[in-house]
């Protein structure tokens, strides 16, 4: 599903440049649930941004579902993001004047899905995250966990090939974190490919594979015994 070869990325900081990614090689199959771990400054967010086409690598190859991702114009990147990727952010990033349903429907709007179908689909995905009865509520009326579940529903609504989650539990307490991870695991069970950036070991253990980044290189890449989050959820 994802193929990365010798990925380099550096940022210019005034006169000196900061080499963030120093040759990343990584591949992942469809249906995997991968945790990307590392301390801050290890380059994990940069990697996720490049995977999410929000940023571009200086050198190296990136293939997503057989499509080489390079020389992207803004418009092309937007279309790829819309078609291939779903994003879940640490701070949810819901649009605060839109109801839960409208938020979920937003990527479909950019896919030019007709209004009626958008509503049906977004209700379906809200149902799946267990928030159907909250469809007409604004984000300000939802709890943190609920917001993140709406954000996951939004990411899934476009039926992406890969779901990218950047610290999805970073702003949540442990109980709600497990709820969210439970949801992510369930989505993964249905065969969706998911990449989770996290620095919490217990969250990483709930994935199937853990990658450790340190100073811009992968220092460890191992399959783990998945801890099911459902056991913590009442």
């Amino acid at each position, binding site marked *: 599903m994802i193929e990365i070869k010798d990925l380099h990325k550096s940022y210019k900081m005034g006169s000196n440049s900061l080499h963030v990614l120093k040759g990343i090689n990584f591949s992942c199959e469809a249906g995997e649930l991968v945790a990307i771990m590392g301390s801050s400054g290890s380059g994990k967010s940069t990697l996720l941004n490049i995977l999410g086409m929000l940023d571009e690598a200086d050198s190296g190859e990136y293939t997503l579902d057989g499509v080489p991702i390079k020389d992207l114009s803004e418009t092309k990147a*937007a279309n790829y993001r819309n*078609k291939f990727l779903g994003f879940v952010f640490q701070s949810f990033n819901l649009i605060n004047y839109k109801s839960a349903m409208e938020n979920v429907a937003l990527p479909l709007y950019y896919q030019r899905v007709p209004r009626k179908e958008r509503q049906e689909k977004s209700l379906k995905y809200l149902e799946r995250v267990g928030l159907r009865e909250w469809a007409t509520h604004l984000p300000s009326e939802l709890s943190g966990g609920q917001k993140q579940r709406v954000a996951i529903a939004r990411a899934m609504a476009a039926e992406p090939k890969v779901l990218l989650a950047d610290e999805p539990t970073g702003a949540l307490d442990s109980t709600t974190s497990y709820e969210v991870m439970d949801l992510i695991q369930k989505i993964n069970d249905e065969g969706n490919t998911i990449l989770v950036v996290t620095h919490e070991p217990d969250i990483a253990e709930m994935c199937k594979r853990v990658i450790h980044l340190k100073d811009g290189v992968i220092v460890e890449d191992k399959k783990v015994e998945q801890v099911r989050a459902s056991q913590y959820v009442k």
Partner: protein
Amino acid sequence: MRQLFDGNTWQEIFQSISKNKLRTFLTMIGVFVGIYIYIGLSGAAQGLDNGFERQFESVAQNTLFAWGQYTSKPYAGYKTGRQIQLKLGDVDVLYNRIPQLETVAPRNVRGVFGSDPALVTRGLKSGNYAVYGDYPVFIKIATKKIYDGGRFINDADIEEARKVCVIGERTQRELFDEDEDPIGGYIKVDDIYFQVVGVHKFTPGGGFESDSDIFIPFTTFKKLYNTGEDVSWFTMAAYDDADVIQVETDVKSVLRSIHDVDPEDERAFGSFNLGEIFGKIMGFSKGMTFLSLIVGVATILAGVIGIGNILLISVKERTKELGVRRALGATPAEVRNQIIIESLFLTLLSGIIGIIVGALTLKGIDAFTQGGDFPYTNPTVPVPYVIGSLLLMVILGVLIGLIPAQRAVSIKPIDALREE
């Protein structure tokens, strides 16, 4: 373009402008006031224009007047300070020497320029009114609307010096009963009976005429007041293609030669022509129109810039939202177009409200000034001006929208989404 006619786009726009209603409202006030001022001012200018036009419609615009004054230079043995008296005989000389003159109407009057008005009585009713001695040609210059069943003075009246008169509306009201037909009735002007042959409708045309003027044949006037060949002044009309100012100069120089006045003597004859005055007034109202155009366009511009300004702030506030939209697959063009359409929509909506309120105001003013002496008629803004202003707003709205739109596009989604 697709975006412009897409219901979804509009839904997005309504959502984003209605989330901050107060700000949207305040933003719109700028353009609203601009277009309102523009419509109000140019309507008022048009109203003045129409008003002046109406005031002058009863008088031919190529009309000029000349009268005798006192000489300021000794000439041909005469001392300075001699009073010049125009004579009936001058008419033929003027016609002969100045071919551009279409009509020359000699006139005499009692009741204006310091002379006492005539005492007019009918039975127990009486009043003091100005009396004019006129030739039939006078109505070629100053159209007098005569009410049904009446007529103005004709050639036979002049020839026979008939004691007939044309009275004004007010004279009729004051001397006759309401249901009485004044035509054929008799009134006494300075103790002489006159038969009423017509009632003229008063049209305000500036000057000293009023709705109570009485017109009698020039020849009758001459006998009544013993004025002989004297003429108070000439009311003249030049042909349409003539240069009225040149004709005015010519008339005065001819009169100077007839009356033995120094050709250099500027004070011996007084004159003025309506063409010049009319031109000045029309120029004034054209200036008003132009001024309103400038002021209107400037205020619209200021208003639109206000909208651009607010949108710029709004884009900054929505940086995160725009980043999310980009991450979810909004293309730069879609983001840009959304901002531009927002700008355009706000501009046009407030503009249209401004036009409607402006039109209602003009209608109100029109109703208020209806029938008054105030030269103000039918204040309207020509449709091309309205369309032009709408077009201007569309163009400005799009251009101004480009600035925040470009700002919105230049924000990279990765920067917008960066956690603080």
